């Protein structure tokens, strides 16, 4: 089975590792540059995107990781992971990988008291998932090559219409919610299938 690197600089890396292991993948925690050798896929967990971005820079991991992704290594980012993957981050100059042609808005639903759970359909999955949104971001623009996998109804959040919360661009998968906090491993399976 494939060796998946889970970025373990900060955040909910343990939960991703558990989900991937339960599906039979080999998992390695990535904390330093040499740990990237030999990984076939990458997961960037939820956490604080500013913290993870700074550590990626300080540890000299940002450029090598970006290159690996541009060379075709499959990657999945949830929440902070999604933010780090996006090319544009509204009102922020923070370090990022910038490989996903999309614009993201951080803390788009408000503060922690506005965090929520909801069921939502995801393109490619038969049944809806339980979306756990914690100080979650939203995608406000996507490029032509980006496939939208899920949207959330903004009416309960004081908005209108629907906004994008899951996307795929080639071998890049990103969600603004946290499947790793639920027992449902279908999105991790979806990601592992991208390695095939």
């Amino acid at each position, binding site marked *: 089975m494939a060796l998946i690197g889970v970025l373990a600089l900060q*955040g909910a890396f343990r939960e991703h590792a558990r989900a991937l292991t339960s599906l039979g993948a080999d998992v390695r925690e990535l904390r330093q540059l040499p740990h990237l050798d030999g990984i076939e896929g990458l997961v960037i967990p939820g956490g604080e995107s500013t913290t993870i971005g700074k550590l990626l820079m300080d540890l000299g991991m940002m450029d090598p990781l970006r290159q690996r992704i541009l060379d075709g290594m499959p990657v999945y980012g949830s929440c902070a992971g999604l933010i780090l993957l996006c090319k544009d981050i509204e009102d922020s100059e923070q370090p990022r990988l910038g490989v996903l042609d999309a614009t993201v808005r951080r803390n788009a639903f408000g503060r*922690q008291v506005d965090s929520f*759970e909801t069921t939502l359909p995801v393109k490619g999955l038969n049944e809806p998932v339980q979306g756990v949104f914690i100080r979650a971001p939203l995608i406000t623009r996507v490029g032509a090559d980006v496939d939208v996998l899920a949207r959330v109804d903004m009416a309960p959040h004081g908005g209108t219409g629907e906004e994008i919360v899951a996307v795929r661009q080639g071998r890049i998968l990103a969600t603004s919610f946290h499947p790793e906090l639920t027992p449902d491993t279908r999105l991790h399976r979806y990601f592992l299938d991208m390695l095939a």
Partner: protein
Amino acid sequence: MEQGSLRLKTGLAEMLKGGVIMDVTTPEQAKIAQDAGACAVMALERVPADIRAAGGVARMADPTIVERIMKAVTIPVMAKARIGHFVEARILEAMGVDYIDESEVLTPADDKYHINKREFTVPFVCGCRNLGEALRRIAEGAAMIRTKGEPGTGNVIEAVRHCRQVLDDIRRLCCLPEDEVANYAKEIGAPLEVCMLVRKEGRLPVVNFAAGGIATPADAAMMMQLGCDGVFVGSGIFKSGDPAKRAKAIVQAVTNYNDYKLLAEISKDLGEPMVGIDISTIPAAERMQERGW
């Protein structure tokens, strides 16, 4: 749609893991903390070392200070309420604070009961010195636990003691024959159901951070090696000579806590650490860790 669920409360704590939460008293300090890589800040009127020095009754910070800090940074902002003071907690919740620390650093408002944290949408973190305290707080609805340590001392010994005690209690609980668990629960004053859960998982059901006396990258790395999920640094940063540099070093130490060469590198030239206090010189009545029931 659901809000305020236990999963959302414990989930934010999961996102803070492997990170450093820093005490700040001004928007400028909050920005320094965020730039150094803090995963959250604790908004305070005074850091624990100054609360200790000032004496008197320590209360929730002025909402103006907390609001200014909330506006200054994009990372989560925590704030402290007095033990048992559910109205201070409601005020902080209404302001949109991301996490409330029901904290022994402030003067307790209730000599018997902690806040019923289950009723709130905002999550709570609470301090503990042993498994019994941790599980009572979790039963009350705490979504995150930290060691109490001895705040404002820059002396890590109490945090180490409390961390080891919790782990020791968990090991004991896990190896007891099942028919002795109910009595153990009674002995440590914790609900049986939560004891059974800990026994099954072999760990606390929520994230556990170190707090109370961490002042150096080495302190932080030691707490991570002892099994903590992350670190609170209170007075240790902004009572030191070069806060920005020390803050960044502690952030790195918490991520790569096993790499001694890196720890040596980042521990260089950090300037003066905060002045420490020997715990034995603090009269028992003035030890903050004794607060909480």
